[in-house]
């Protein structure tokens, strides 16, 4: 039975099921209260968690998102059930941490991870097309490094504790949320009273949806970055069919729920139309994901099945969110001020950070090598 299920999940129908379920649940989570075109966004939700912990003080984006907790724990449950939980670590963790930081800075310049880019596109936000093009270019660059022998080196089998730290951290976050811990009037946790951070589905609903996605994604290895990488590297459309299913189902769901449109660039929900930085932000994110071996969602699922290196990448992303907001690097949405259209986007600091990130990623891509004979 277990072997049959494993075979199914590894098949094309398995990955289509996983993508389809994400495409189904994300618009429903938005309908249930999550922010617009942000039924699920791994980068944004990790950023909200950073805010809730006080790692940044952007008052509108602070909340302990149960979806993130559930992605990790769902993956842990699936990995345990199918005897795939393996504690492992030791593949250049500091580099993965840095890649996580810059991946987040790039994603927040665009205002979303690849999942949200797909969901924004599925609701008619054309800026997402610009972002997805940037993502593909970043991944293309990453593939060139991989072909030339880029490697972060081998991970090694580790003590079980290494694998359990991330699930335990997530369980801790969940308890903080359930008990709405507040150490003092001005202290953590911080919960947004307005803005995207204040918009959320009931926590049990978010948790349930996240657990289902976590289980399916662990079994099928759903990965948005991988879907593009595999096509570029070897014309393999396996993972891409999952991403396709996500978009098709999300478009239908958005139409049914009245969440589709208007189609366009300016004034899309929690988005900006500064094209060049939407593009370059996602080039940076795509390159960092490719060098780290997975999109932000996939890193959570890997962390859930015991991969300590992916856990470090996740902590890098959460750190990156803190830095992005404390140093005003994140993009600002478009706005209508007294009837005048004001295009948002990143400021000079944000632009500098994205360029710095690209330079760092290229240097890493060129210099990280592992002797394969060893």
């Amino acid at each position, binding site marked *: 039975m277990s072997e049959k299920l494993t075979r199914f999940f590894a098949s094309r129908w398995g990955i289509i099921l996983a993508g389809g379920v994400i495409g189904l649940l994300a618009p429903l989570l938005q309908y249930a209260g999550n922010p617009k075109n942000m039924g699920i966004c791994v980068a944004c939700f990790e950023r909200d968690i950073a805010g809730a912990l006080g790692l940044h003080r952007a008052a509108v984006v602070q909340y302990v998102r149960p979806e993130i907790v559930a992605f990790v724990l769902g993956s842990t449950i699936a990995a345990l059930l199918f005897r795939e939980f393996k504690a492992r670590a030791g593949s250049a963790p500091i580099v993965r941490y840095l890649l996580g930081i810059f991946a987040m800075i790039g994603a927040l310049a665009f205002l979303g991870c690849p999942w949200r880019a797909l969901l924004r596109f599925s609701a008619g936000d054309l800026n997402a097309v610009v972002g997805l093009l940037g993502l593909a270019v970043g991944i293309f660059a990453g593939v060139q490094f991989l072909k030339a022998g880029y490697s972060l080196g081998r991970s090694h089998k580790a003590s079980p504790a290494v694998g359990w730290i991330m699930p335990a951290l997530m369980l801790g976050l969940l308890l903080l949320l359930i008990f709405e811990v507040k150490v003092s009037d001005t202290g953590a946790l911080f919960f947004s009273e307005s803005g995207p951070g204040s918009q959320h589905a009931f926590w049990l609903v978010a948790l349930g949806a996240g657990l289902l996605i976590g289980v399916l994604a662990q079994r099928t290895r759903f990965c948005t970055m991988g879907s593009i*990488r595999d096509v570029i*590297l070897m014309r393999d459309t396996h993972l891409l069919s999952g991403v396709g299913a996500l978009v098709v189902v999300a478009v239908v769901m958005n139409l049914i729920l009245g969440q589709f449109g208007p189609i366009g660039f300016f004034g899309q929900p929690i988005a900006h139309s500064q094209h060049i930085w939407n593009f370059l932000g996602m080039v940076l994110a795509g390159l960092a994901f490719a060098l780290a071996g997975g999109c932000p969602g996939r890193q959570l699922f890997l962390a859930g099945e015991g991969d300590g290196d992916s856990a470090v990448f996740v902590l890098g992303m959460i750190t990156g969110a803190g830095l992005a907001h404390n140093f005003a690097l994140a993009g600002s949405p478009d706005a209508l001020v007294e009837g005048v259209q004001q295009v948002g986007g990143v400021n000079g600091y944000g632009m500098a950070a994205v360029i710095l990130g690209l330079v760092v990623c290229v240097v890493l891509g060129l210099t990280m090598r592992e002797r394969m004979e060893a």
Partner: protein
Amino acid sequence: MAHTVDARGLSCPQPVILARSAIQAGEFPIEVLVETATSRENVRRAAERLGCTVQVEELEDEFRLTLTK
């Protein structure tokens, strides 16, 4: 004596890249060692797409894939 590709502990997609270049070099049979079920499936899928027959053995903490053509 089989040609061995040791892809244990390597991140995605390096096991597949190494297996592919071994397949393209054309010295069969090829033994690929991987540690995770993900790598096992990825290498199996890539090898089958390139026309190989794949046999999987589960060892204690890893998998040995034997590719023949």
